[in-house]
C-alpha cells in the first residue's frame, strides 16, 4: 500500500504539507473545519500528538478523521507517552485503518506541558521508533515474533538545522536516515541562506526534506520564539518587517513573509517541499499558499 503522500514525494513535485491540532475535549468542529479547508490543497496533513505535552484528543483519532474526510493524514507519534507495546499496537491499528504516513518524534518533556507530574515513558526514542516500523513491515515485532497481517508506512522524522551545537543533532539525523526515514520535516527555518548550507549537507542522503515554515503573527511572537524555542532563529530583518506592519495588519505581513520564503525555496529548488505550520491559525494556511502562488 503506497500512500498518496509517498507518491507525491517520489513524483519529484514540490510537496506541501501542513498540520492541524486535535482539540482539548470532544468538540471536533474546529479541527474538522481546518481539515476541510486543507485536505484538497496540501499533499498531506500532520496531526499533532499532545503537542507541547498538553493532553488532547489523540492524534490517532484525528488521523482517522482526516482519512474519513478524504484527506491524507501524517500521524505524528511521540515516544513520551507509550512504551514499545503501545506504540507497536497503535501502528498496527493505524495501518489497518488506512493511515500510512507517520512522523516519529521523541516528544517534549511532560514538564513543558499541562500534566507536569505525569510519568514519562521514552521506552524508545525517535530513531528506534523508525527502526521498529521498518521491522514491523518485515513482519516481525520488536520481540522477534511474527505478525499475522503486515503494516506499511511512509515514515518520517524531524531535524533542527539550526540546533546549537549542530554536530550532535546531525549525528542523530544520520541515525534516523539509517533507521529508514523516508522524509524529514525541519524545525522552522527563517534564514534561508543558512538553510541552504544545511541542504548542501543533507542532500547527500536519500530522505526527502520538507522545510518547516511557521507563520509569524507578530514581532513579539518572533522574539518569543527566538528566546524560548530551541533551534529557532528569526533574523532581525523579518522581525523589523513585522514590527513595521500597520496596527492590526501584522498577520498579513506574516503571511506575506511566509509566502515569499516558500516561493524562494521552490524557485531555487532548495529542498523537496515545505511543511507549513500556523499554530492555532490553521485557517490561514490557504492564504499562505496563495501568497506563495501554490494555489
Amino acid at each position, binding site marked *: 500500500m503506497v500512500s498518496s503522500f509517498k507518491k507525491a514525494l517520489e513524483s519529484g513535485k514540490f510537496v506541501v504539507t501542513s498540520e492541524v491540532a486535535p482539540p482539548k475535549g470532544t468538540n471536533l468542529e474546529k479541527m474538522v473545519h481546518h481539515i476541510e479547508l486543507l485536505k484538497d490543497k496540501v499533499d498531506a496533513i500532520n496531526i499533532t500528538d499532545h503537542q507541547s505535552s498538553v493532553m488532547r484528543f489523540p492524534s490517532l483519532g484525528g488521523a482517522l478523521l482526516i482519512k474519513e474526510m478524504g484527506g491524507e493524514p501524517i500521524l505524528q507519534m511521540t515516544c*513520551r507517552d507509550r512504551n*514499545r507495546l503501545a506504540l507497536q499496537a497503535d501502528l498496527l491499528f493505524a495501518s489497518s485503518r488506512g493511515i500510512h504516513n507517520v512522523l516519529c*518524534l*521523541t*516528544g*517534549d*518533556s511532560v*514538564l*513543558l506541558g499541562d500534566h507536569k507530574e505525569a510519568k*514519562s515513558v*521514552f*521506552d*524508545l*526514542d*525517535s*530513531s*528506534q521508533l523508525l*527502526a*521498529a516500523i521498518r521491522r514491523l513491515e518485515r513482519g516481525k515485532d*520488536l520481540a522477534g515474533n511474527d505478525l499475522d497481517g503486515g503494516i506499511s508506512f511512509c515514515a518520517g522524522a*524531524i531535524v*533542527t538545522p539550526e*540546533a*546549537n*551545537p549542530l*554536530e*550532535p*543533532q546531525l*549525528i*542523530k539525523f*544520520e*541515525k534516523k536516515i*539509517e*533507521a529508514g526515514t523516508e522524509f524529514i520535516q525541519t*524545525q522552522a527555518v527563517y534564514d534561508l541562506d543558512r538553510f541552504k548550507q544545511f541542504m548542501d549537507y543533507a542532500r547527500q542522503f536519500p530522505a526527502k526534506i520538507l522545510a518547516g515554515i511557521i507563520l509569524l503573527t507578530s514581532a513579539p511572537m518572533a522574539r518569543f520564539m527566538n528566546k524560548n524555542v*530551541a*533551534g529557532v532563529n528569526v533574523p532581525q530583518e523579518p522581525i523589523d518587517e513585522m514590527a513595521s506592519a500597520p496596527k492590526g495588519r501584522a498577520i498579513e505581513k506574516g503571511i506575506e513573509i511566509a509566502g515569499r520564503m516558500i516561493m524562494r525555496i521552490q524557485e531555487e529548488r532548495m529542498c523537496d517541499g515545505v511543511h507549513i505550520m500556523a499554530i492555532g491559525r490553521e485557517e490561514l494556511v490557504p492564504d499562505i499558499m496563495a501568497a506563495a502562488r501554490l494555489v
Partner: protein
Amino acid sequence: MIRSITQQKSEEEILRLLEGLGRVFIIGCGTCVTLTHTGGEPEVEAMKERLSDKGKLITGGVVLPVACDNLTGDALSKYGQQIAQADVLFIMTCAFGVQTVARQLKKLVVPALDTLFIGKETALGQFDEICLQCGACILGETGGICPVTSCHKGLVNGPCGGTNNGKCEIDSAKDCAWTLIYNRLKDLGTLDAMRRFQQPRNHQGEPKPGKLVISAS
C-alpha cells in the same frame, strides 16, 4: 563517595503527617543529610524548636552516625525510654535511614525529608545524579557519561530537538547530556561510538525490586 540527596518536606506536609501525633522523637544522621544540611545536628535542633512551637512534645532526639547502618537499632536502644514515650519517630534522614529504623523498631515512622536521588558532590555544595543503577550499563559506549541518568529523557541515540545551547529543554541550569557526551567523545577521538545505532534498551536488567543473593560456596 555515593551520597543520598535529600530535601526537607514542606511544613504543610510535615504537619499533615504528624496530625494527631503529639509526642515526637526526632532522628537525624551524621552522614549524607549532615552534608546537605537537611538532617544534621543543627537541623534536628531547629526542628525540635519548630515542632515545639506547633504544640508537639519532643520526647527526645539523636543524630545517629550512620542511620542506614544495621547497628542503628542498637544505637537507638540507649534512648529506649524516650522512644517508648513517643507516638512517632520523626526521621530526618534519607529514606534508607527511615526504612532501616522501621525494620528494626516496632514504631511508627514519619520521614521529614524527600529523598531526591543517589548522587555525588561534584563541586562544593553541588550534588548531581549520575547513575540510576539501571542494570544494563552503557557507559562504555558514551565516554563514561551516563545518558540514561543525565539526559532528562534517558535517550541513548543522541540529543532530542529541545537541546538548547548545550542545556536541557527542561532547565537551562541543567546541561544537555548529549552535548557533554559529544564533546567528550570528540576529545577522545571516538565519535564513532555515538554514530552507532543503539537498540531499544533492556529496561528489566534487574526487575524491580532489585535483589542479589551471593551464595557462600
